[in-house]
């Protein structure tokens, strides 16, 4: 073989290769083309290179250089085509209808009442509150006596109580956790106590014999009603929106004094009065007050040195108004069609 014959074959291959490479429609075809051109066993270029040795000695150098140029060009073209084919394969290709649905797993859901508790907990966590818990079956003393309920007083009528033994009740509120916490840990105390509470209320669209409550308690030196107002108003703005207006009304709980209910301006009518707020323009959110000195004393604290404030709210009520749930019993039924609405 002469150099000119060698170079002619090389040129022919260089001219033919690009079209063949482009013609490869998928990765299998590409592999065939690659093998035909540069395959180790029987590739055209491979065969051609084998002929290099037959050239006259003085021509081998030039033949080698020219052959290598063609080889690099073919390999680059092959690689570009391969990448293009791989990209096309990744975006689907004719076998896959991308409009068909994904393979789903069941999605879990947090109960709507838990969602409210979570939000309340998150907001108070930002303010340095930690979580305290207590038992649901309680000594009457923790539920009433330590909380300054006068014995056999009409104040008890507000707490229709379920009894499990002599002087043993299902707690009617989370406030016993106040006393347990203050007995256990020295001030400063800043806790939130979510939990289940029980009332002898028949199960109807707006009452349940068991429901959850969130208690909050702050006790330290120099804590004032201004702290109560500031913290709870801050909470209302974080929870209901930055422009939320609050008001505090006098109320009565045996274990706080002064006692105040906190309302937020009705989000439906913006204070004008509507069915949701019973025409008052305000919606009751929580009960609160300065911890009664008798409660601090029941927990063995010096009520002259320490003051504090507390609040309690019912997350179920917030949940039903937030989600438009018409009957509180739906929260307890555990119907999967209801719970799936909260899946995430």
């Amino acid at each position, binding site marked *: 073989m002469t150099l000119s014959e060698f170079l002619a074959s090389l040129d022919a291959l260089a001219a033919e290769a690009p079209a063949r490479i482009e013609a490869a429609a998928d990765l299998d075809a590409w592999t065939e083309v690659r093998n035909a051109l540069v395959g180790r066993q029987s590739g055209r270029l491979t065969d051609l290179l084998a002929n290099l040795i037959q050239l006259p000695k003085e021509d081998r150098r030039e033949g080698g250089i020219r052959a290598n140029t063609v080889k690099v060009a073919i390999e680059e073209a092959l690689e570009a085509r391969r990448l293009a084919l791989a990209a096309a394969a990744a975006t689907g290709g004719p076998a896959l209808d991308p409009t068909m649905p994904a*393979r789903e*797993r*069941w999605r*879990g859901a*947090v109960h709507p009442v*838990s969602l409210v508790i979570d939000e309340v907990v998150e907001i108070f966590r930002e303010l340095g509150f*930690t979580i305290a*818990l207590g*038992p*649901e*079956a309680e*000594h009457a003393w923790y539920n009433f006596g330590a909380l300054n309920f006068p014995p056999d*007083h*009409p104040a008890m*009528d*507000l707490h229709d109580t*379920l*009894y*499990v*033994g002599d002087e043993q009740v299902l707690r009617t509120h989370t406030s016993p956790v106040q006393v347990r*916490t*203050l*007995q*256990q*840990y*020295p001030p*400063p105390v800043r806790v939130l106590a979510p939990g*289940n509470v029980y009332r002898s*209320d028949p*199960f109807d669209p707006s009452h349940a*014999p*068991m429901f*959850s409550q969130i208690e909050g308690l*702050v006790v330290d030196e*120099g804590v*004032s009603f*201004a*702290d109560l*107002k*500031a*913290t709870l108003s*801050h909470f209302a703005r974080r929870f209901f929106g930055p422009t939320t207006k609050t*008001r*505090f009304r*006098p*109320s*009565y709980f045996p274990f706080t004094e*002064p006692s105040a*209910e906190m309302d937020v301006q009705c989000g439906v009518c913006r204070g004008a009065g509507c069915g949701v707020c019973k025409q008052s323009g305000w919606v009751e959110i929580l009960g609160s007050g300065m911890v*009664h*000195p008798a409660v601090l*004393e*029941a*927990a*063995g604290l010096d009520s002259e040195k320490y*003051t504090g404030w507390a609040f309690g709210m019912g997350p179920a009520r917030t949940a039903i108004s937030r989600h438009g749930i018409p009957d509180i019993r739906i929260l307890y039924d555990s*119907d*999967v*069609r209801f719970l799936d609405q909260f*899946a995430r």
Partner: protein
Amino acid sequence: MNVSHEWLSRFVPHGRDAAAIRDLITAHVATVEGFERLRADLAPFVVGRVVESERIPDTKLSFNKVDDGTGTLLDVVCGAPNVTVGAKYPFARSGTTVPPSAKNPAGLLIEKRKIRGFTSNGMLCSAQELNLGEDADGILELQTDAAPGTPLLDVLPLGDVRLVVDVLPNRPDLLSHLGVAREVAALTGATLQRPAELASLPPVSATPVTGAREATTAGLTVRVEDAADCPRYGAAVIEGLTVGPSPDWLRACVEAVGGRSINNLVDATNYLLHGLGQPMHAFDADTLADGTVVVRRARAGETLVTLDGTERKLDPAMLVIADAKAPVALAGVMGGRDSEVTARTTRVVLEVAQFGPAVVRATRRKVGISTDASYRFERGIDGAAVPEMLATGAALLAQLGGGRVSALLLAGEAPAARAAVTVRPARVGMLLGEPVPAAEIRARLESIGFAVAAGEGEALRVTPPSWRHDVSREVDLIEEVARLRGFDRLPDALEGARPGTVPDHPLFTAYRRVRDALVAEGLLEVRPLPFTSGRAFGREGVRDDLLRVRNPLAEDEPFLRDSLLDTLARRAEYNLNRMQGDVRLFEVGTAFTARGAALPREEHRVGVLVMGARRPVHFTEAQPPAYDAWDAKALAATVAAAAHPGAPVELVPSEGAVLWRIQVGGVVMGEVTRVALDAPVWAKPAFGIELRLGEMPSEPVAGRGAHAHDSAPSRARSGEPVRYRPLPLTPAAEFDLALLVPDAVLAAQVERVLREVSGPQLERIVLFDEFRGTGIPAGTRSLAWRLTFRHPERTLREKELEGRRAQLLKTLEAQLGVRPRTA
């Protein structure tokens, strides 16, 4: 407490409208939760404007076009002579009911109808038709700028408003118009006064006959057996009375607070109760045997027919008013039928007493009724006011009935003077968050009847008035100052606070971890009621070892559960009843175990119940597999790891319905079970998991009035940190073992041999196949494991692996009779 705005205004001429008074009372005293216009019958009427009007020939009628604000002019025929184009009148659209009046004694439903060939779609109204006056000569022209369609009640200052005040148990002094008026006077600066109907009463000439326990005058003896039950008992004898209808002003008062007018004497007692807060009762004096009134405990076996016609069985826990023979009233609760004032009554004994709160409460609870009177006695009335109330009440009844007060009797003593309470202005300022001047404290307290004197230094000595039973400590006075000043006026700047000493409760953090893990697994959190019937599907009878609620709401569910799966099973059945077969629920809640006389043991647990499809239908899998025991086993491991992080978890095979016991750190903490359900045939099997998170102690933390700060538990993070293992530098080698395993041999036994024989170079062992059937001898199954080995320093040779394989097979055959499966 129902407050009539008009009646209140007679006690305190405040010059404000009802809405302003509502807001004032809510902001400073007690919440006004109802605001009811008493002319609610006029609520459907609107302002209508006459746009066109023409005479209907040969009649007194006019045919008009009326704008009622709806945008469509209505055709209305009217018989009044004074219809003026452009003027506004009260308008009744079709469908409105016109109230009964002198013109329409039976009321009138306005309907679309034809009059003389003209259609009429409503009615323009006269004052008389709306009970707004006697004027029947023409329709009532409204002097208003309000747009057509505006409710009439918004335009006319019509009638009285009833304010429903939510009086809480500490403030019985607010259970009267006088009490509310006292607060309104303090807040507005207006003067508290006696209403004209009381101020104009002629004074009673009789002087009260008094006695410590007993008082006697001609015709009546009053005796109190126990001063604790009845600190004070006043009675007036009023003669020459005529029972008849009440005057309009009295009827209006009674009806304004929601009562029903009965007769002049009974209405008078109700006026005094709602007006002054003093319950009173009038007996027909001629029915009292021997002219005697005794306040005593009932005797066993006595009965009394009360005013409501019910015969009540009495017992010694109850306080009664008796005559010489028998009880005639339940003291402070309800009168008796046989001594009731009737149309024939001419002589009454008017009772004006103070009964002990506890005995009234006990009496009314035993008979199961609560009345306006018992409600006030239970909370405490103003004992010091009894003599004055007696005189006022007697005078009012005498005047209304045209009779004469012949005697006043008063047994018992005036209440002891109230103890003074010290209030320090500095403490007021500290608690409220801003300084409050001593002069302001003094003025505010005096404005509601407290007597204030100077105390030591800056302090004030404050004596509460006799009607306030809720003030005995400094903080009670601070509350008075705060609310009169106004909660909304107090500062509310967010200040820095010291961090607390209380660590997060570990059961709460465990709940959050477990919940997050299960939600990630696609499960739904539930918060059901924890009550149970004590019955379960597939189990006989009712369990008697559960914690029983003594006064359960539902007799069929009197117990608290000791298992979360009990509750979840009932919730699954609830779903199955609604054709929902794919159930995947979990709850983190409390299980109660009865402990005799002690409080129950409370455990926080997680319960899981899964049944039905393991995942939603997909086109690649029209029938997704159902949850099976292996899913439950995996979920159990997931839950246990989330609940008790860092602790080794083991699922130990068990028997019967219990598939595995969940061991955490070597202790059984729960189980995985098949759950028996009352289920339809199409339902898939249900699997349950119940795992303990921890116990919630209920023992007292410390004694009453004591603390246990020295023993506050410190809470360290649980579990050992993960130790780093060097990453391998040498390649792994693996082979599969397909084995014929006799049915008596467990997979775990085979695996144990594989591990023991393989030694430390065994890196991983996976059971990847189980097969029975063709080619497998009866009584055996094929199990296949893939074993991965790695030498820490060098590549394993083919020969070594072959040798290990042979050794494994030899040992398995020798120890367990397990042979290789040959193709």
